[in-house]
């Protein structure tokens, strides 16, 4: 995969000292797995995961909404937990396993039950918040097979278009489908 963006800063020796061998450039990096692929981040460690995904890996499914972790547009799953990628710095990502909305569908193009439920309930309006909504729902359903209304409302992702009613229905539809799939 072609990578663009931040490159590793080259360490500069503080002082040349003939008695010691010149220090070798150390290629430091943060290794992580995104949607099953291995990557090494060699740029700014304080870069939020959101901009690493979007600007470096060019995975633009996670959206920008607020910088404050309040809206949930940027939600991705890290080691099984839904996180606001705008507030998650790359220095915390070493050895982590990330799933974005691009990584949900099967290799054969078969949609995740949550994605299919979103289509079946026509839960998108402008659509911009929906990748984040979907990732939050996937994580909820991974720990709550039968989420209550209260469980669903606890997600708290914002939808500027107000499609909450359909999002709730879609989550329940997905829960039912996932149960049937296992049965």
């Amino acid at each position, binding site marked *: 995969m072609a990578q663009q963006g931040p490159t590793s800063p080259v360490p500069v020796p503080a002082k040349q000292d003939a008695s010691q061998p010149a220090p070798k450039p150390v290629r430091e990096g943060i290794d992580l797995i995104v949607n099953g692929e291995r990557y090494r981040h060699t740029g700014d460690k304080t870069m939020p995961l959101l901009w690493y995904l979007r600007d470096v890996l060019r995975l*633009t499914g996670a959206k920008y909404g607020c*910088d404050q972790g*309040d809206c949930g547009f940027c939600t991705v799953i890290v080691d099984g937990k839904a996180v606001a990628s705008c507030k998650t710095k790359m220095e915390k990502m070493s050895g982590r396993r990330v799933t974005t*909305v691009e990584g949900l569908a099967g290799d054969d193009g078969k949609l995740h039950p949550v994605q299919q439920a979103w289509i079946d309930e026509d839960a998108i*309006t*402008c*659509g911009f918040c929906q990748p984040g909504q979907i990732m939050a729902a996937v994580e909820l359903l991974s720990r709550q097979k039968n989420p209550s209304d209260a469980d669903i409302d606890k997600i708290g992702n914002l939808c500027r278009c107000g499609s909450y009613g359909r999002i709730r229905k879609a989550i329940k539809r997905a829960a039912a489908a996932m149960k049937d799939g296992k049965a």
Partner: protein
Amino acid sequence: MSGEVRLSRRRFLKYAAGTAGALVIGIGTADAVDRPPPLGLLGDAWAQVGPYLRIDADGRIFIGVRDPDNGEGTSTSLARIIAEELDADWTRVVVEPLGLGVTAGNGEPKFTYGRQRSGDATSIPAAWADLRQAGALGRWLLLQAAARRLGVPAEQLRGESGMAVAADGRRISYADLASAAASIDAPSAPPPLKSPDRYHLIGQPAGDVDARAVVTGALRYAFDETIGDPVIAVLARCPYPGGSLDTAERDAAMKVDGVYAVIDLTPEQGQPAGMAAQAPALVVLARDTWSALAGRSALDARWKAGNTVEPAASVLEQKALELFDDDAATPTTVRADGDITSARKKAARALEATYFQPWVAHATAETPNCVVRLDPDTSVTVIAATQSPRQVYTVVQRMTGFRPDQIDIQVPRGGGGFGRRLEQDYIAEAMAIALAKKPDEIRNRPVKVLWTRDDDLARDYYRPLAVHRLNASLDRKKAIVGWHQRMASPSALAGRGTPDNRLWQSELVADALPAGLVPNFRSDWYALDSTLARGEWRGSPHVTPTFASESFIDELAHAVKANPLDFRLALLGDPRQLPYGARGGPLDTGRLANVLRLAADKLDWSRWLRSENGLGIACAYVFGAYVAHAIEVSPTADGIDIHRVVCVADVGRVINPMGLEAQLQGATMDALSTALNLAITVKDGRVQQTGFRDYPIAATQPMPYEIETVIVPSTADPSGASVIAVPSAAPALANAVFRATAVRVRRLPLLRELARLR
């Protein structure tokens, strides 16, 4: 291999053979035909005739959608209008958003796809007028081709789900007929449209055509565009309108890894509001978004206010009250019937109330952004979500001096519009940066401007703050015989070249109810001054006035101890048509009474008097649509619970009930959330809000679990849907809150005011 059918003096359909056996149909204007694109040079007919419709030999049907879709659902509904007339197989339809259609005319650009604006719920009514014809021509040509092939008269053939079907059951797919259809001679008149009883797509629910792309993350909003590896631009804008730069740490910003340059953006003089960048600003150009943001932090730009410091809302409100009481003030009288003064003298009762509504922001989900790829000698490509591609063109043409054929404006699906994307400031920013002198290493790379949320809230084109004072006179039979409304606001049209006597047009609607129902009626608008940028917000001329008028009608009903539903129905009177100057008229009072009754029935309005919960109702006529809200609330220790919200709409014929329901629910949610919580406030000359913590959009509390909708069946011509459920929601809520708490809230946001008054 091509032909034309005239629809009207200025509009015509044209069709041609495309590559690989395709039939392509477009709509043109008489202006554009003055200089038809040279056949053969452009290659594919798709480019020659305007890509509304292309029937490929492989069975796929491409439908181009001309109006931007920022969540209104037009990419689905406009495509279905065409597909219906074509009798297309919807499962084979591929919908593509069209960029701006512009060609060189005789010195003037010609906009080949028409208006291409999304706003004020116009897309559907416009499509109803002409896009059906494009589909009908396609079907006619295909059936003619089938008639030749089968040796039967075309009148004995019908279209059915992508097939031409003969009376004897023989059928040929449109795919097989596409090539032959392109060489049929044009009909002498536009082919007849389908009878609505044969509709199989219009009126049936359809999911959004972009759904799969959205849920897989594949859909590229402009925010996601990476064409040509663009340089990322983040701006530090002056937070004081009319202010200037004090200090900035340019060297510190340049030291941030990934920052290429810091450049100045200076104000463009003489441009109308909304057609130029909001300058001054400093632009940080960087390799990626994070570097740009870090560079902006390091820049630490400090700004000074200009000569005029924007006052707090309370100062503007005080000014409004002084104007209302000042006999020497000179408002614009928007409408005057009868004599309100003598009506007041003769009245059994006279009431007055004053309503205060704050500045509010759009806060689109996708913040403003724009990508520009410029070759200074040859061409420019602009990629941006917009509600007005033609205005984008105007700005781009002005700043580049290019000919129409050098300008390519692409309009992907947008993450919300609400009126924000009628403004061109973010386009002008990106253009100015693309044209600016830059370091060699980035000189030829595209530029992508991104706004952060605090940028978005700090420099929006806000819905104007508004003060309304209403006076009513009632006779002994409890009928309203006099109505005087005074509204004061800073006009959203100010600074845009609009003459002073028309500045009210962005603020209120002259014929809005109860105009036409009250014999002595007067509506006056007073201008307030403000330095904040203002703009359209979800049909705003309907929104703040309807909160005032529908709240006040409720107050009048209570004053005369009438049931607010009965009071409104009596006011509307017998079903009849009222003249209505703004778009959508005439107004049918019977259709409005009907949505009121249906909303009341759905909420079981018979409980109104004895219910412990408060029931409230309100209605509005918005761009040709009739809407009512009925809401049930109860008081809580620190606010209210909203138990039920009913929204009833009569939009004429419904194109896509599933899309309409989403628009009604979403607009209701937004209107309630805004009324409950939202205000943009000014302190020390600048906007205070910075994010969703202090500007909590789309709050789910205290909303009900579901917004209940009722869609009235109708065969009337369709109206739009996207903003119609905004105006009546807030007054229905305030009216319900009054019944629940005995507190009349005349100032928004509601929760703050309710807490103050209780």
